[in-house]
């Protein structure tokens, strides 16, 4: 079964799981930023042009970790709301079966309170669900924009690495590779999540 065919509450949980992975990769980016600072310090004048870039890598790492944590939280809330919605929908279906099958029961009207309360809850959950879905879509777009910086940073890092002494060239190229790879992985999780969010918005 492809992911698009799962029930909405399973998809919401899948999104949360994918974004959890993105958070872990973002943490690796933080390590890369620390590593870049250490290499630039050791390289001294040989990597003078690289040093300002480490601040940008650091900033990117911080923004990415913070943002992916926030997104993860929204996704987890969405997943919880979706599961609650599923349960409430299920209760509504069962109420309606009883109305259909036992409409002539002596006390059928006594179900009305529970049914209306559940309907109200269903409405509230649906509104919360839509809101959280839109919030998640917006946060994903923002993080995707932030990650554009990563490509530029990786390119600039490579340029600076080529001008550094041969002793530090590999280490600096490695920093550039790590930035690029982390951004690529996070982007992949974001793209998949965006697609799943879009499916949920349409469904």
């Amino acid at each position, binding site marked *: 079964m492809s992911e698009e065919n799962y029930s909405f509450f399973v998809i919401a949980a899948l999104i949360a799981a994918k974004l959890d992975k993105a958070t872990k990769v973002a943490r690796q980016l933080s390590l890369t930023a620390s590593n870049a600072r250490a290499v630039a310090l050791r390289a001294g004048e040989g990597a003078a042009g690289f040093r300002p870039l480490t601040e940008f890598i650091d900033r990117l790492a911080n923004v990415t970790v913070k943002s992916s944590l926030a997104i993860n939280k929204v996704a987890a809330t969405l997943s919880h709301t979706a599961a609650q919605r599923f349960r409430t929908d299920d209760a509504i279906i069962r109420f309606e079966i*009883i109305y259909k099958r036992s409409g002539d*029961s*002596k*006390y059928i*009207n*006594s179900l009305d309170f*529970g049914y209306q309360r559940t309907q109200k*809850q269903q409405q509230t959950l649906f509104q919360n669900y839509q809101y959280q879905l839109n919030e998640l879509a917006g946060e994903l777009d923002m993080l995707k924009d932030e990650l554009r910086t990563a490509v530029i940073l990786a390119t600039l890092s490579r340029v600076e690495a080529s001008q550094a002494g041969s002793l530090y060239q590999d280490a600096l190229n490695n920093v550039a590779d790590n930035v690029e790879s982390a951004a690529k992985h996070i982007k992949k999780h974001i793209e998949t999540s965006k697609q799943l969010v879009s499916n949920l918005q349409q469904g």
Partner: protein
Amino acid sequence: MQIKTIFESASHKWLVLGRDIEKPDLIIDTNQYMVISKNNTLLMDPGGIELFSAMLATIIKQVPVDKITHLFASHQDPDIISSLGLWDQALPNATLHSPWLWESFIRHFGMNNIAYAAIPDPGGQLKLDEVVLDFIPAHYLHSSGNFNVYDVEAKILMSGDIGAALESNDAPMYVEDFDSHIPKMKMFHQRWMPSNEAKNDWVNRVSLLDIDMMCPQHGRIFKGDDVKRFLDWFEALPVGLLNIK
């Protein structure tokens, strides 16, 4: 789902619900019991999610839902109380009476509106208008936190899994021939009940009660002398066995 009145007096009546021919084949057949007094109704071991619609549809032929004020779950198993999340949506004002041991577990079924009244290990009482019902400890029979419900006026013991039998959902509601009923109960008790000590202690306590009807959650109701026959048989039966012959 069938519903039958098994006791009726001026103050209250007992009903059994079960033998649902529309239930999915692979789920175990269960008996649910209901005590209706003047202003209150107690629903005992209300069953699993799969039974909810049939149960509620049957019940509202007898009482309005706002009169279902009490639920009782003898223990935590899914066939006993996994419908709780749905009852929680349906009942405007109800309390669930269940072993203290299982409160934090049973709440996993979903409980936002229903209140949990934890029954302590030694047992307790519930008053439904003028009707007094006793929660009789039946720990380790089979669950480690487990109660029966005894009605001294009706002389009925709702015995949960004790006395249960595995049989088809078109079986009669009452035991008709005790000896031929034994093979349907034996494996259930030997495999599901873990403790001979707990079993003998229960038999000793329950033998002191005046019981006309013993009502298990699966299988058939024991009436009259069959109650004593069951107690004698159960006392002699070794339980907690894995390789049952």
